[in-house]
């Protein structure tokens, strides 16, 4: 689309309010970190001026996956683990739509793990938000793949047996990873900045959001929430810039260039302090929908001529 046409579109577009993106009343528990993610996402939609009818939030199953119901855009609340392939189908069929994926640590890293790996490889232009609270919430407290070892849950009453997997290191290990970031629900300003950068990245942006679940693992992130020094803020001119006000609280900062994948992998493996920011970004990775030339105009003529030439190939003439 030409710049002039773009300008005209903007001229005609109404300025939307937050309410224009707000759907049903959230039914998450009091204090649930998902509320912070919802607020950040609604703000993003408003600030980026997304047309609600052109925006689709796709989710799987779990607390995280209720998010589309609370938006006033199109939403697709799918089945457990399959949000990513559904979103890919949507994007390939309709590259004109803004497609977001909300998924949880069980949904993405356990039952949907195969899709997660391949979604990174396809690198379609999707914004994927991993609501990682380290526990299964909707099914009432079972250990998830990201639960720290020793987590007591209904299926691991004496503590979970395995070391947690790191969604960041896994994602950074997959071919075609193009945007990997980490945010936490308790620093909403940075969460918003990161989600914005993720949305603006062309390719699959994977944002892991550490999210509190006060109902089942209330103390999971307590030490980090209460000790800002245990947060590692990644700042860079190509990453996010921490505001002066926040800088006073979160003093543990490093400069990290998001184009440096080796350093990104190193930072990703740190559990304490928790790194926050953009770990990796590579806008050069091709998007699957571009490789497949999705959204190409199909005409009756093109279908007909292809069919007729195929018929010719197989025809036995009298």
């Amino acid at each position, binding site marked *: 689309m030409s710049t002039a046409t773009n300008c005209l579109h903007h001229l005609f577009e109404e300025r939307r309010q937050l309410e224009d993106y707000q759907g049903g009343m959230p039914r998450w528990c009091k204090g649930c970190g998902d509320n912070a993610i919802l607020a950040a996402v609604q703000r993003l939609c408003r600030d980026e001026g997304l047309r609600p009818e052109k925006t689709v939030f796709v989710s799987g199953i779990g607390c995280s996956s209720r998010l589309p119901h609370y938006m006033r855009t199109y939403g697709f609340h*799918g089945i457990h683990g*399959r949000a990513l392939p*559904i979103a890919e189908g*949507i994007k390939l069929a309709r590259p004109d739509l803004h497609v977001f994926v909300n998924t949880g640590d069980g949904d993405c890293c356990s039952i949907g793990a195969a899709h997660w790996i391949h979604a990174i490889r396809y690198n379609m232009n999707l914004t994927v938000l991993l609501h990682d609270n380290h526990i299964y919430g909707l099914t009432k407290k079972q250990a998830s793949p990201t639960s720290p070892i020793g987590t007591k849950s209904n299926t691991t009453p004496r503590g979970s047996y395995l070391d947690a997997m790191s969604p960041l290191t896994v994602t950074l290990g997959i071919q075609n990873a193009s945007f990997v970031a980490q945010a936490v629900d308790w620093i909403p300003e940075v969460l918003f900045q990161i989600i914005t950068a993720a949305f603006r990245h062309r390719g699959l942006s994977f944002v892991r959001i550490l999210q509190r679940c006060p109902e089942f693992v209330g103390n999971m992130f307590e030490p980090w929430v209460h000790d800002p020094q245990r947060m590692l803020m990644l700042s860079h001119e190509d990453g996010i810039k921490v505001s002066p006000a926040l800088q006073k609280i979160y003093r543990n900062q490093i400069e990290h260039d998001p184009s440096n994948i080796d350093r990104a992998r190193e930072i990703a493996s740190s559990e304490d302090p928790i790194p926050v920011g953009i770990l990796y970004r590579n806008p050069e990775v091709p998007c699957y929908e571009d490789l497949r*030339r999705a959204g190409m105009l*199909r005409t009756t003529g093109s279908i007909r001529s292809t*069919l007729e030439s195929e018929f010719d190939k197989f025809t036995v003439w009298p």
Partner: protein
Amino acid sequence: MNAAAELRPRGVPAGPSGSPAATKQVVTLDEAVIEIMSDSGEGAQKCGQSFGSIAARMGNGVWTVEIIPAEIQPPARSVAGASGNRIRIGSRAISNGGDEADLAVAFNEQVLLGRVNAGELRPGCIILLESIWAESPDPKIAAQYAETLARLVAEGYRVYEVPMEHECRALVSDPRKGKNMFVLGMLCNLYSLDMDLAREQIAFIFGKKSAKMIQSNVALLEAGHAWAEQHLDFGFRVPAERATEPQLVINGNTAIGLGVLASGMDICAMYPITPATSASHYLSDVFERAGGIVHQAEDEIAACAFAIGASYTGKVAVTITSGPGYSLKQEGIGLAVMAEIPLVVVNVQRGGPSTGQPTKVEQGDLLTVMFGSHGDAPKVVMAVSTIEDCFYSIITARRIAETFNMVVVVLSDASLATAQQPFRRPEFSEDWLAPPIDQSPIPEGAKPYDWDPVTGLSRRFVPGQPNGMHTLTGLAHDRSSRVAYDPEINEQGMHARSLKLAALQRMLTPPTVFGDPEGDLLVVGWGSTKGAIEESVERLRREGHKVSSLHLSFMQPMQPGIKEILQRFRQVITIEANWSDDPRDELIDETNRRYSALAMLLRARYLVDVDCWSEVRGRPIKPGTICEVLRRRLAQGASRP
């Protein structure tokens, strides 16, 4: 007594001065079944398909069946490694692979043995056997050859030893690669096929390669023809009337691929699985030219979810699979049912359960596609019965999916997948294509699931339509797509989704009975058995039996008028390629007998005492077998009070 063995003793290759064929007698036949078998990679399939295509061009009815080993490179000279083709040609249209073969060509005696042991050759069948093995330096091979030859002769087969490799050596450096065209030439001679058409066929199949390649293969063809003319004292003619309309010669999976293209669908999501994949192979080759995309997903579940996502945005998408893949897709299919997202799912059935018999035919998935996915998940189920049907059913399936916002499952099987049969070249119609995606604003106050109380139908809102924003969900939901916790609403949704099947059923016409509308015995079938069933019915009717048949293409909903048809016959039996208990088994009685899928459905739906006969031998059911079953049944029926 074996004329050929006397004519040319074993081990002595026939030279140009061999037995003269001056006394060659050409016998006119109504039809013939020919099998060509080789090791994998020796080109018997190409030979068989070419033979079928030439016969089709001459106007013969043709049906070809691929004989496929399970492995890509099975050991050479092995019984299980037979790769080739069965071709049945006739003066009239041919609808199935027929009975035991009349003539078999084998590139070695081992690949032939598998077919002999499976009872695929008729008694006294003519066998043209490559004789090079008799001279093998490996004494084991020479002994195997001698032993098999002796056995075949003893069993009464008319075995002709043909020095294929010797003859080809004069023409090409690697005779192993050229034998198939030599054999094609022999067959053209034996069945009086037009050599000009044969040369054209070679030019067509090697068209992408060099002119030299074409020349060398034509030379092989001609050599084979000359050899048979000179050395074989028999020949046949299956008279044909040249077709007046152009015919398409393709297999079922290609027809499915063409159907997807013709239906105007944009996206096919799939995961490799036998025997469905060749449909996607074909589509991958041509779809992009028309702007379509074949997406090979990371697994079957993803392929289904991907297709659902694509469908959700406006245009119906398709996913193509076989049994195990279908099982994996079931949860996704349930989502599409619940959220009323149109979707076409093609299941090219193979032997099951589990990995079963991947390359073999079976009709074992009917109940699973009808009732599969947990809860009540009503979907449309269609079954294709001919190659032509494979093409048109996909177009129909897309339309039904879109009109009713439903999942439409199209059942094909391994037999149709690779069988070829000419059918009238379709004439393009714009009605085949999907309409453009609706992006018009939704009127204020309209609801995404505003179920019509009579039909259950509602207008679908797709992304991009202003005012249509809602969150679609697999949870029970109300008319506004809000999660429903209310018992009333859950029942309303179930009701609406179920009603759509009834609404579709009201649009269908009653099926046509093949034969008289009443009689002693009605045979009911579905899917690829159609040709064999109808042929058996014809044979029995010629014998004076009052037999008719009914072939169903809509399995769910079933067409109206079926009960009335069933009631006009004294006995009803289904013939199916799936499991059913044999009532003669010691432990089996009416209280525990497991019926074949269709029989079970007909009994449940129409309260008619429908019996069944089935076979799960991994091969198409032969018309001769069906005839025997039906004769027995008629005799039993006659003895009843």
